[in-house]
Every structure is written in structure tokens, then in C-alpha cells.
């Protein structure tokens, strides 16, 4: 007569427990919202964790100004639908300096608009805990990161000095100025995320589903021409191709894949039958072997 909890139910309960712990112990928490599928799942879990209360913290999007237009539309729709307390932060220093991926390259753009923008926002609002949607299965160096990950007042991560994390008892004590990045989806895999989206019918940005979209092929990646800020190189003509995105970020830095999968089940089917891991679509990861770890030490989420 025992009832076996399914793997999704166990993952869900774990994430909820983590979120409630932060709400109970942090002074000024925030949930980072990137509009992508992991963020959508995280937001859904947060609504479950505190029901019937509303989220006891704001949701923040660090906007690089180069996100897909459909992402911003979706953000507006979700904010209204769920009555979120949404903060949109843009690094105005970067805007003033005209930083962009085409003019400054992916490295500088990400550093200034994303990494520096995030630190700026955390300092500005004095957030002492920030939820992020990162998963341990995404990348090797993340496999060893804790669920509660501490950052110095300078937002640095020290992989050699992590607190042991046993059972589900989390040590949330910190000195003034220090902050915690909390990863409630640590133990989810990409497949879990998709299965959960399917099971719970969670709304998604349409970019995840295949549609005819204008793209150019550049450095082996299909880049969508999302607005007229994209400078076309000699001989480049945008072509309409049926494509979708496996991860979402800044449109010039996010490669599309050609696909026929125009609904959720088709996307999951395609994912299960295909054989490349999801981060491959991110231009930023290819920089150097230990690039993600280095970025994380510097404060990239």
C-alpha cells in the first residue's frame, strides 16, 4: 500500500524544499528569469512552492538588449498572467558604450551585458540570494557545484572552498556583502525538464518549436536575423528555413537547428533521437576547454 513517488515528483519536491528554505532564511532573495525552458520550469515550481501565496520575492531578467523579440513578448505575457513582480535590468554603461555582439564579439558582449549586468543588478537591489536555473548535467564543472553556492562580496566563486552539503540541510549563513546563488534544478536533466514541461503543460517561448524563420549560415551555425541590427556579410542573404532553438540567449549568439518539430512532443521525440548535447548551440562555450569554470569564478552564473 505504499505509493511510489515518480522521479518527477521527487525532483519537484526537492526543488520546492530548496525554494522554501531560501524564502525562510534569506533577507532579500530574487529569482533570475532568463525566459528559457529551465527558467519556465523554475518559475512553475516556485508558484507551486508557495501556493496559495504569491511568490515571496521578485523575478529579475538581466536583459542584454539582444534577446529574441519573441522572448520579450513572452516575458510580458507571463508577467501579466502570473502577476509577477518583474525587474528588468539593463547595464546602462554597456548601452552607453554601444556594446554589442557584432561590434565587440561574443566575449566582451557577454562579459559586459550579462556578467557585469548581473553583478550590477544584485548590488543595486542588495539581493542576498539569487535563484538560477543551472543544472548539473549541463557541463562537467557544474557537476561538482553545490545547490547553495556562495559568492564573495566581489561575486567570485571559489571551487576549492565549497561548503559540504549533506541531506537536505542547507547552511545559509553568510557575512554581510556575501551572497548565495541557489540552483533548485541542480538534479534535473534536460530530459527531465522536457518531460516535466509535457506533464505540467508549462507555457514555452514559441522559438523552441520549428517554424519558417529568416536565417544566415555563419561559422557553421544558423543565426536568425531577428532585427535590422544584424550586419550581413558579403554574399549573405537571409534564407527562410524551418528551424527551432534548443537553448535561448542573445539571438546573434544562439545557433538554430533545422527541424520539423513544431509541437512539444515532436521536440521531445527529436531530442531523444538526436545525438548532440544542448550546449553545442551556444557560441560562448567553445572559447576554451575550461571556459565555463573560468567564467563562473568571475561571476557568470
Amino acid at each position, binding site marked *: 500500500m505504499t505509493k511510489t513517488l515518480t522521479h518527477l515528483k521527487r525532483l519537484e519536491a526537492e526543488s520546492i524544499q530548496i525554494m522554501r528554505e531560501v524564502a525562510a532564511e534569506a533577507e532579500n532573495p530574487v529569482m533570475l528569469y532568463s525566459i528559457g525552458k529551465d527558467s519556465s520550469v523554475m518559475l512553475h515550481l516556485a508558484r507551486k512552492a508557495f501556493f496559495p501565496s504569491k511568490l515571496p520575492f521578485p523575478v529579475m531578467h538581466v536583459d542584454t538588449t539582444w534577446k529574441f523579440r519573441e522572448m520579450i513578448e513572452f516575458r510580458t505575457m507571463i508577467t501579466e498572467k502570473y502577476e509577477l513582480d518583474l525587474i528588468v535590468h539593463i547595464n546602462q554603461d554597456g548601452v552607453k558604450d554601444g556594446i554589442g555582439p557584432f561590434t565587440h564579439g561574443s566575449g566582451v558582449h557577454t562579459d559586459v551585458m550579462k556578467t557585469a549586468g548581473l553583478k550590477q543588478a544584485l548590488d543595486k537591489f542588495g539581493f542576498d540570494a539569487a535563484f538560477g536555473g543551472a543544472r548539473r*548535467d549541463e557541463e562537467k564543472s557544474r557537476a561538482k557545484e553545490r545547490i547553495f553556492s556562495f559568492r564573495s562580496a566581489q561575486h567570485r566563486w571559489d571551487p576549492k572552498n565549497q561548503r559540504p552539503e549533506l541531506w537536505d540541510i542547507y547552511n545559509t549563513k553568510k557575512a554581510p556583502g556575501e551572497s548565495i546563488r541557489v540552483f533548485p534544478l541542480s538534479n534535473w536533466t534536460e530530459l527531465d525538464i522536457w518531460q516535466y514541461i509535457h506533464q505540467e503543460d508549462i507555457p514555452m517561448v514559441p522559438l523552441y518549436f520549428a517554424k519558417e524563420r529568416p536565417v544566415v549560415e555563419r561559422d557553421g551555425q544558423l543565426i536568425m536575423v531577428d532585427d535590422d541590427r544584424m550586419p550581413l556579410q558579403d554574399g549573405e542573404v537571409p534564407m527562410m528555413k524551418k528551424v527551432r532553438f534548443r537553448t535561448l540567449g542573445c539571438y546573434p549568439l544562439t545557433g538554430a537547428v533545422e527541424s520539423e518539430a513544431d509541437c512539444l512532443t515532436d521536440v521531445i*521525440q527529436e531530442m531523444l533521437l538526436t545525438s548532440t548535447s544542448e550546449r553545442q548551440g551556444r557560441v560562448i562555450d567553445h572559447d576554451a576547454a575550461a571556459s565555463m569554470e573560468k567564467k563562473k569564478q568571475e561571476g557568470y552564473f
Partner: protein
Amino acid sequence: MSHQSDLIADDIEAYLKAQEEKSMLRFITCGSVDDGKSTLIGRLLYDSKMIFEDQLSALESDSKRLGTQGEEIDFALLVDGLAAEREQGITIDVAYRFFSTDKRKFIVADTPGHEQYTRNMATGASTADLAVLLIDARQGMLTQTRRHSFIASLLGIKNIILAVNKMDLVDYSQKVLTDIDAEYRDFAKDFGFRSIMTIPVSALKGDNILNASDNMPWYEGPTLMRHLEDIPVGDARQTADFRMPVQWVNRPNLDFRGFSGTIASGTVRVGDRIKALPSANESTVKSIVTYDGELEEAVAGEAITLCLADEIDISRGDVIAGKDNPPEVADQFEAKIIWMSDDQMLPGRPYLFKTANKMLPGLVTDLKHKVNVNTMEHTAAKQLELNEIGICTIALDSRIAFDPYNMNRETGSFIIIDRITNTTVGVGMIDYALRRASNIHWQALDVDKSARAEMKLQRPAVLWFTGLSGSGKSTIANVVEKRLFARGRHTYILDGDNVRHGLNQDLGFTDADRVENIRRVGEVAKLMVDSGLMVMTSFISPFKAERRMVHDLLDDGEFIEVYVDTPFEVCAERDPKGLYKKAKAGELKNFTGLDSPYEAPERADIHVSTDTLSAEECADTIIQYLEDNGYLSANGGS
């Protein structure tokens, strides 16, 4: 092939439906790199198709560059992580890996096998349902096998898989397997394991990992993957008594008051009679609220919100339990502690303890003995070092609801947090409550502290002088006492001379003894303050934690920290007792400022230096402070 690719291609909806019924198993793998542990995990990921082609091509190129398998794929590289570790060629932390089959999702805690890493294995084991112990078939049982089994049992793991690896190197011999199996079962008989399954494998060649091995037709048991898929877990937790530690009080408006938490064990139904602890207030479950609708019943592992029929006082950290089978309530325990910090554990030093959802101050009152992880022998000890395990008694600031750890992991575990650095320095598992907590009752007397103080026309306090040896603490304290005496105040000085020769004559100068020295002085000072005295203490008291401990013993405003900040060179030059000379000559060990640290106060109440001021001038400053803050008038000043 572990995922049914035909069903994925033909009927994705049916596939997804089936996937939603999957269960989950968390396990740890124990063994050293030499046992082929990383290879085994890499093989499980590879065979369950959790490796994508781009990772595989990276793996192939890495294997040629860094691998140890010649031209063959080195699976170990798959589970390698941080750059620093990659350079050292060794796993130095806990890493979590994921794979799934059609029946189960698996979370693997990959923990290293080296001696100094007890802390990492304990971390991985704390959330695991099962442990896979790797044994090299050529070596048989080693010291590390004993160590891993002991830690697994300590952390409450009930199911063991003994994976006897490298069977290919012993000609797939059945005798090798049966010998190891017999030896292990005999060794592990007292560990309380519910199941032990011995499986002969070759991680490198894939024998008995996913598919039954053709090389070992004599083996009739399940393959590793099959056993991982089929072993039942989690039932015991559900049939245990109901416990839910309250994590968050859910109060969206005046009409709704719910208690959110994750059910630690057992089952709860609407209408159940419950008891909240430690208050022992009772009520009835009115509803079980979730985002997906109200439930009639909820079980261990579910995150829910309980609404009760009565308005009883419950806050975060309280435990809701069934009325008839509540947990015990106590503030003193015997527990097993695993120490995880470079700074040793010292009995008497105050720490923070965090149990399920509750943080409270407390201390380790006694270290009864430590346990050798290799031999399980008990040895006497005064302190615990990194990676050591001790049987301790602990005393908490207030009472908590708990269960013995071997009955309930969730309500029997705690972590220990350093009050200064905020890091997690140790973890513990409660064995039982100590009864003496309920036997000591303070006599409530009519003549109390304020009555005594009033009679003496003063506000009692401790002037805690801290500073290096020879800094002038005692000299200044003497001047201050003379002045106060002259004003008709009631005073006393506690210093090394009148304490070390009597009360503390059994103590030396190790860190542990220094902590105990200060603890006793603090307690004596507290009694003196209670009697209405102005107390001056003159001790080097080099550690922040101990000064903080005394501070916390006393009421607000009763602890005045006086930092006698005289530079080391000046003290060494003065050397009134000739101690610096001896210490520099190596005749005195653990000398503060030389081979033992002095942690200067950051926010002393009074800061003086005999480098620039005379003892008389320092005393002026202190008397002025006492006057300004109302210590020298009967009602505590204006």
C-alpha cells in the same frame, strides 16, 4: 539499449506516458581510481545512451591526449571535472552524475576513495539509497572497503552492491568471487545492511554491467543495471511514523494559515489528529493543500501545506507528528559527529547547530572517544581533526523534536556551523537524548541579581581584558580595581595566577585546554556577576570564538571587551616573565603570537595600548567608559 527507441519513434505520446511512471534511485560509488570506479560510471552513462555524439567525439580526442587506455576510449575522462583536478588527474570532490533507463532515473554521487576524504563520501552517502562498493578482484577486500562500508552504515545506507571489478584479469574465476563474497558478508554482518548483492563485473569490457556476461556463465544473479533498476527503495520511509518539520508558514491573507514542509516520513490524511512539537499542542488536519489541488492523503517525500482545525502556535522548525507517535523532545544528546574543517573541533566551543529547518546555538559538551574509520576501534581524544569521527555529547540552547538517526534520517541529522566563519565545519547523527537535561532545575530565588546589584549601588559586569602576554592586562586591571575600590565598589579580579593554580590546575596550553580554561573562567565570571560584582578578568584569551562564548553567557551589556593592544615587539622586549625568551628558544610550545595565533578583537568596547599610554592613563579611559555607560550608579545610569 536502455531507452525504447522504437516507441520513441512510433508513439511518442505513449512513451512519455510510460516515462511519467518512472521512479528514482540515488546511489554512491565507492572505490579508488585504481578500482576502475570512474570507468564504471562512464560505462553506465555510455551504455544507457546518456552521452551525446559531440561529447563522444570530445571523449575520443581526450582519450588519445590524456587517456590511460591507449587507443581505446577512456571512460574515466567522462566523469572528470574541474580544471585543477583534471591537471592532478584525480577526483577531489563529490560529483553528481545522471542517467536513466525506462524504469528509473539515477543520480550517482561519485565520491573519491582516498583516506583524507571521509567528508566527501559522507556527503555523497547522506542522500543515497544504496552504495556500490568497488573491489578489485585481484586485491580482494582492502582497508578502504572496510572504511567505505563503515561510513555507508554510519550514514544510514541499507542496501549494498559489492561490485567485484576487473574479473577479466582473474580469468573470470568463480572462486575469486565466492571467496570475496564470503569474507565481506562476515565482515559486514553487524552493519545493519538490509541487502548485500555481490556482482562480478568488468567495467572496462562491459561484463555484467548492462548485459549478462558470456564470460561468466556460472553467475546467475542480475547484472548491475538490472539490480539498480529493480531493488525496492523508499518503502520503509513511508511506513514509519508521520513527521513533517515545518519549513515555512504560509500566510497569504488573514483567512489562510498553512504550514508548508516536506514530509520526512510516514503518511498524513485529512482528519488525522496531530501534535506539534516541542509545544505538544494538538489539533486535527483540516486540509492538505497543493497547487495541483487538495489531497486526501500525502506521503513521505511530498512537499505540501497543512491546514489545521485549530489556531495553535506553530513556527518554522517545529515538527508536526501523529498524536499517538510523536518524536522525542530534548536539548542534550549523544551523537556521532564527522568533522569537516581544518580547524579542529574543541569541546566547550560554541557552534550553531542546524537541524531540519531549525538553527540554534549549542556546544559539544564532551568528546567521549573517536572512532577509527579503518578498524572501527575507539580511542580517547580531546579534539577532533578534519575527517575524524567522534562520539560526542551536545547541548543545545533550547529543546527540539528529534528521532534517533537510525530510525529517521530527516529528523535525526544536523550540521554544525562555525559562528565566526559561517562555514559548515561538521555534521552529526543523533543516537539518543541525555536525560540529565530534565534533572537540573534552576532554583528561582527571591534575592536575585538585580537585588544584589542594587544593594551595592552598581551595575555588575565583566571587564574582559584580552591581549598578548606582557601587554599590560593585569597591571591595568589592578589600577582599575584600586580606583573602583576607592569609590566603594565591590570588585574581583580573575587572572592566571588565581585560576591556573587552583580551579584550572589540570589544564595545559593546547588549543583544547585554552578553550576549556576560558569556558571555566567565563562560568565563574558569570556567577560573580550574578552575585552583583564588577569582575575584571585578565587572560590572553586569543580566540574570538571563546570571547564570543563568554559574551553569550552573559546578559546584554554585562560583557565589556577591553583590548590591550600592545604590539608583539614591545611585549617581547618587555618580557616581564621571561616567557618570550623561552618560547623563542623553543622551550615553550603553543606560545601566543609565536606558534599559536592571536585573533585580535574587531570591535572591542574599549581599546587601549600601553605602548603610548601609561597604565594609569589606560585606567582613566576605562573608568570614564564605566561612568559614561552607567555602570557606577545603582539603576544603570540615567
